[in-house]
Each structure stands twice: as structure tokens, then as C-alpha cells.
């Protein structure tokens, strides 16, 4: 403006500086205003996302962008390599086994990818043998409820998907256009959220002891034990108290048909083990122990319950997770040998033809699946037939194989 910051070359006189300021002002107006006016007549650079784009925004993103995952179920071999590769269990695949004659040997009941959890690391894409799972360029994840963020590539579990059998030696697989499937699934994201609990329901829920979670298990156990003592002789009511200590999922892992069966057996005195509730885990065990101890002694254990906490700690690991309950029976080789020794034994039992019918690339893969990755289907070795199946059951479970 009136004073410019340019240092003068030779000091002009006072009047010269005065005139120079005026001239500089006029000149900077002339230059500056011609620049701004010229910009007014240009096309603005702004990209009007999302609704006034020339092309869909996905097409403006680099091709190798890691957006939402997509699985082309037409070329998915159900190898579960992506599920194993995922470091944070974003992918969930449920496999249904058939006899291979009337029903296909393998069918996928579920192929869920929780986009809300996905960290877009791309580790699942790398092991995929057919390129069925890929990152798309979709990225807009605004949903009505975070549950909607799960992409279900098998939309209906009652209509399972038969895995793709890649032709031998094939290098390329016919994949549908990237993004098509995910875009279609994303439409479902506008589904309304589950309703909020009504005020009455929220009130009714309040104060009821909840299973698991951050609740104080030992206090809850003592509370239940006190109630159990009051109804010691009344078996049906005692059963109800005992059932409250259980997870209540009626999973049947305890060997009884449901929680009622297990708790009734304890109440009747037919069952003494407190560690059979797999979903309840250490919490259920600790509570049941507290109740059983108090029933035996007639008093509720004090602030540090004598039986429950020490028993709970080692007990936490023993029952294992709900996923592999059958392994926990008997003393089969699987329990006595180390994993590496077990691997050799299991590999010996296989037919050794590397046929790939087990959906693993070769016998080595299937063996590793059984030993290290918790594969519980032991009847996949087609060349070995019934012989191999029996051997595997003997090794892994110490039982005879169930009839087909």
C-alpha cells in the first residue's frame, strides 16, 4: 500500500520517496487487480464431491488403492488362506462338509468380512490362489449402524456356495469386474439400525446380574452361593441358581443337551465337574466352584473365596475355547506328543498322493492344517479312504471315527 517494503537502491529525497510511494501504490493496484480479475474468469479448481463429479470418484483413485475388500465367490476355492492370513480376524468363513456324493464335499455357509474392523493391510490378498479376494477402490463407509459394515459374500447360509475347482495348471482365473460385488453389497448398508431399548426394558434390565464382562465374578459367585444355600433342598430352584452361573448359550459343549441339563445334573448330584461350561469359561467355573463349595460346607466363602480364584486360574486354559471342545477327551497321541512330532505321525497316516482333494494344496498342507491350525475335519483324505480317516481319529482324538 502506501509504504512498500522494498529497500531503496539510493536514498531518494523526502519528496522523491513520497512520490515513489504513490506510484508504487498505483502500480500494485494495477498488477494485483488484473491478476485477481483474471482468476475470476477461470474455471474453479474445486472438485464437487460427491454429486457433481464428472466420473465416479472411485475411478479417480489410483488402481492399487486399498479400499473395501471384495470376494468373487465364483472363483473362491474355500481354502481359507485369507482367513488365516488376517492378523485381526476380520474374515469369517464357515465351511459345511458333505459326503462328496449327494452333497458336495465342501460348501461355504458364511464368508463375512467386517469392514469396520479391517485395517486394509492387504495380507489376505497375497495368499489367495485365484485372486478371488481383492481390494476395491470403494471407500465410503457411512452406515446407519456399524453392524451394517459387515460384507456378507454368502448372502444366505441356507444356500451355501460350492467352492471353485481351479483347472490344473491354470494361471489366470475368470474374475468379475473389481468392485461390482462390493458395490452391490454396500447398498444394504442403509439398513436401519436396531431399535434403541425402550425405557421400561432398560429399567427392567438394570440391576440384573449379567454374565461375564467386567462384572465382579467372585462377588457374583458369593451372591449366587448365598441364594443356593437357601434353596439347598429344593432341587428345581437350586437348578435355576446354578443355571445362572452358566453362559446360557445352550451350546451343548458340556455333553448335556443344554444348560438346563448340565445344571440339573449338578443339582441332582450326578455331576461334580464345574469346568464343563465352555462359553462361560473361567468365570462360570469360578462361580460354580463357589456354589459347590458353599453347598458342601454350608457357609458362603469369605471375601477371598478359598476355592474359586486359585482354581479359576489354571482352569482358564484347560477347558479351551468353544471351537475345539472335542479334542479335550482321552489321552490320544495329539495330547502326548509335541506338535512337531505329531506332524510327522499325521503325515505318515496320509495317502501321500498330494492330490489336493482335501482343498489343501498337498498332504503337507492338510497335515499342517490339522496339527497347527485346528482343522477338525479329519475325513478329507480321499485316496487314503476309510483307513486314513480311522488313523487320524485315533491319533487326534483317541476315538473310533463316527460312521459316515
Amino acid at each position: 500500500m502506501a509504504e512498500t517494503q522494498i529497500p531503496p537502491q539510493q536514498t531518494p529525497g523526502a519528496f522523491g520517496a513520497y512520490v515513489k510511494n504513490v506510484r508504487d501504490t498505483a502500480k500494485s493496484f494495477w498488477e494485483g487487480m488484473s491478476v485477481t480479475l483474471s482468476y475470476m474468469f477461470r474455471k474453479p479448481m474445486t472438485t464437487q464431491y460427491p454429486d457433481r463429479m464428472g466420473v465416479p470418484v472411485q475411478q479417480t483413485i489410483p488402481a492399487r488403492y486399498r479400499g473395501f475388500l471384495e470376494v468373487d465367490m465364483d472363483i473362491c476355492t474355500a481354502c481359507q488362506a485369507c482367513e488365516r492370513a488376517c492378523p485381526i480376524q476380520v474374515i469369517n468363513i464357515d465351511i459345511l462338509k458333505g459326503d462328496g456324493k449327494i452333497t458336495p464335499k465342501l460348501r461355504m455357509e458364511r464368508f463375512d468380512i467386517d469392514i469396520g474392523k479391517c485395517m486394509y493391510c492387504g495380507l489376505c490378498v497375497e495368499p489367495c490362489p485365484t485372486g478371488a479376494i481383492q481390494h476395491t477402490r470403494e471407500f465410503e463407509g457411512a452406515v446407519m449402524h456399524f453392524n451394517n459394515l459387515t460384507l456378507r459374500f454368502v448372502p444366505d447360509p441356507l444356500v451355501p456356495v460350492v467352492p471353485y475347482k481351479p483347472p490344473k495348471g491354470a494361471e489366470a482365473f475368470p474374475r468379475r469386474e473389481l468392485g461390482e460385488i462390493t458395490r452391490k453389497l454396500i447398498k444394504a448398508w442403509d439398513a436401519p439400525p436396531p431399535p434403541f431399548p425402550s425405557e421400561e426394558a432398560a429399567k427392567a434390565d438394570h440391576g440384573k446380574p449379567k454374565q461375564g464382562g467386567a462384572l465382579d465374578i467372585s462377588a457374583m459367585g458369593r451372591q449366587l452361593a448365598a441364594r443356593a444355600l437357601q434353596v439347598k433342598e429344593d432341587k428345581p430352584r437350586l437348578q435355576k441358581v446354578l443355571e445362572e452361573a452358566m453362559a446360557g448359550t445352550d451350546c451343548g459343549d458340556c455333553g448335556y443337551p443344554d444348560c438346563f441339563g448340565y445344571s440339573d445334573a449338578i443339582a441332582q448330584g450326578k455331576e461334580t465337574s464345574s469346568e464343563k461350561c465352555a462359553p462361560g469359561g473361567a468365570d462360570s467355573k469360578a462361580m460354580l466352584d463357589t456354589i459347590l463349595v458353599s453347598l458342601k460346607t454350608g457357609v458362603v466363602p469369605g471375601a477371598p473365596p478359598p476355592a474359586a480364584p486359585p482354581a479359576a486360574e489354571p482352569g482358564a486354559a484347560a477347558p479351551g475355547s468353544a471351537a475345539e471342545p472335542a479334542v479335550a477327551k482321552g489321552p490320544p497321541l495329539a495330547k502326548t506328543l509335541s506338535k512337531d512330532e505329531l506332524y510327522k505321525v499325521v503325515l505318515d497316516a496320509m495317502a501321500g498322493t498330494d492330490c489336493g482333494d482335501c482343498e489343501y494344496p498337498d498332504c503337507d498342507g492338510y497335515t499342517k492344517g490339522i496339527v497347527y491350525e485346528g482343522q477338525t475335519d479329519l475325513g478329507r483324505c480321499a485316496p487314503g479312504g476309510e483307513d486314513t480317516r480311522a488313523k487320524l481319529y485315533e491319533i487326534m482324538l483317541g476315538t473310533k471315527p463316527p460312521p459316515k
Partner: protein
Amino acid sequence: MQGFLDNLIRGWGYDPATWPWTQFIYLFFMGLFSFLVINFAAISGGIFSWAERRIAARMQSRVGPNRVGPAGFLQWIADAVKLLFKEDLIPDESDQILFRAAPYFMMVGFACVFVALPFSHRLIIADMNVGIFYILAVTALIVVGIIMSGWSSNSKWSLFGAIRSAAQIVSYEIPAGMALMIPVLLAGTMSTQGIIRAQGAWPWQWFIFDNPAATAAFFIFFTSALAEGNRTPFDLPEAESELVSGYNTEYSGMRFSYFFLVEWGNLWVMSALAVTMFMGGWQVPFLPADRLDALTGGMAVLAEIASLAIFAVKTLFFVFVVMWLRWTLPRIRVDQMMNMCWKYLVPASFVAVLFVAFWMLVVRAAPALGIAMHFLLAGIAGAAVVLFVLRVAKNLRDTGDKFDLTSNW
């Protein structure tokens, strides 16, 4: 306006001097015209707020508000509705009465200007014989409002802004007043309509091209008007980055909207004043003022609309220039602002007044010299406009861009 009403009453077959209802008719039309003028100010202020945002956006390669209504034109209504529904917060530690009253002082000072501001050949609320003096006087009321709001907010930022504003407006009143003296000298009247009548429709008949001093006076006046309207580069009183918005920091809701209304409404006031004083006002080409007076019936209405349109177009051009300046120039420092006023504009305006007085004597002695000077200055200005357009086109070409006003709208 009184003449218009008297004619109206005579048209109904009464004598305005003796008819008992004359005063009531006056009162009714006073109310009606104030209502119209306030609404004109409010609506034009709103539309300018939208226009400024669109223009600013384009100058910065952006798009600006374009979603509410066609091209975002209804954005200002949405903003107004939002501001009206916002809670009108009044700080607990503020001076309650002054805090509440300050925006109204601003509004009154701003609305009063419209009384003497012409819109067209006949359309003016009151053609006072002291019109310019009146406008300069009521504009000063805005300073009172600003100081009140700054003081009563009980906030340091607000007070800084208010004091800056007071210093600025009081300083720039002097060059503005002196510059406005020149058209008054040339026209021999202070009435706004009289000053317009003394000029002509063509650029070489305007006061801005009367002599070099008048041209300089126009720029002095325009600069001072920018400063008085707190427009960039003189927006020190409400410098967002320094003062957290200055004197209106503590205001919200409707009271805040008054401040903004005044700021944008002032665009029209300062532009209309510049057009009135220097740019020939509403003068219609080929229809001098005395022939306009003589027209009757449909032709008179048509000529009235033409003069209104001419005045509006000229004024809107200056409104655009003010916005354009805002997005071109950075804010100047307080010391630069004061230097500019006292070292440059004030002496220059005094010299200009003296020169014009001298020049009027010269022209009286040799009228041909006056006419030659008119054409010379208008020619120079025309050449400057052509050069400027070429310069803009060159700027556009140099970056490889095309002239494009329609896409990405």
C-alpha cells in the same frame, strides 16, 4: 417526495394545502417508504453477502456457496434464518443496556443515509438542500454504535476493535468530506439530485473527468469510503486474525446479523454515493434532466425505469469493485493506515479543493479549456480501461487457462 404526494392528492381532486387528511397521507407514505427502504437495505445486504462469497470463491479458484437455490442464490436467506434462530447471548459481565442498544445505533445510522440517497430521476425519499452534509452527519452514528458495542462487551478484543474503528473513521472523515466538497463546488449545491443534474449521461460529462483534481478526489473519496465502511484493506476493526472479529466478538444471533447487515448494506451506500457525486448518477443518455422532467405518462415511467437501471448498474459495478479489492489487497497495518490518511489523503484532498477552485476560475475565463479537459481525461480513462482488459487477458493466457465463466458453477 412531498411534491409527489401533493400531486397524488391533487389527482384525487383535493387541494393538499386545505385538505384535512394531507398530514395523514404524509405520515402513511413516510411509514411505507421507510419500510421499503429498510427492506431494500436488508435484502441488498443479504444478496451482496452471497455475491461476495461467490466472487471471492472464483477469485480463489473455488466454487463458493452453490447449493441453496439456483447457483446458491438463496444462501443468504438460509444464513439469515439461522442467525435469527440463534440464541441472542449477552455476556454476563457486559454493560447490558449499551450492549443491547449498540446494533440499533449502527442500523439507524446506516438506514438514515438512504433518506438522502437517490435511486432514480424522481425516486428519492427526501431531496434535501443539505443532502451531502446530512449523509456525512448520520454516517457518524455508526462510529457511536461501534464504540458502544466494543466498550459494553467488556472484552479486550472488542475494545481494541472499537478504538481502532473510531480512530479510523474519524481520521478518514476528513479526506472523505474534503473530496465530497469538490462535486459540491462544481455543482454549486449540496443536494444529491442537484449534483446529479449538474452532470451529464456521458462519461465526459461526469465530475470525475472535470479536471485532474476531481479525478484524484474520486479516488480519495473511494479510499476513505472503504476505510469508513471497515472494508479490506481497512478492515482493522474486525481483523479476524488479530482481534477475533473485533467489536462484534461477543455478539451472536440477531444482533450479530445487524452488524453484518450494516457492513454489506454499506457497500450500496458507498457505491451509490460515489456514483452520485462523480459518475453522473441516474442521467440517461440522450435525455437531459430537463427533458426527463417534461415527460409525462407512459414515457415518463419508461424513462424512470431507464434511469433507475442506469443508476443501479453503475452502483453494482462499484459494489463489485469493492469486493474485488477485498480479495486483492492484504490488510494494512495500523500505522500504515494512519500514514495513508494523514500524510497522503488529507494533504491531497486539500490541494484538490484548492485546485478545483482555481480551475473553476480558469474555465470561466476559457470555457473551451474545460471541455477539452473533460474529453482528455475521459479519453485517458478509456485507454486505461482498454489496457487493463488487455492486461487481464494476458494474465489469463500466460498460465494457459481459458476464459470460462460457465463450467463448474
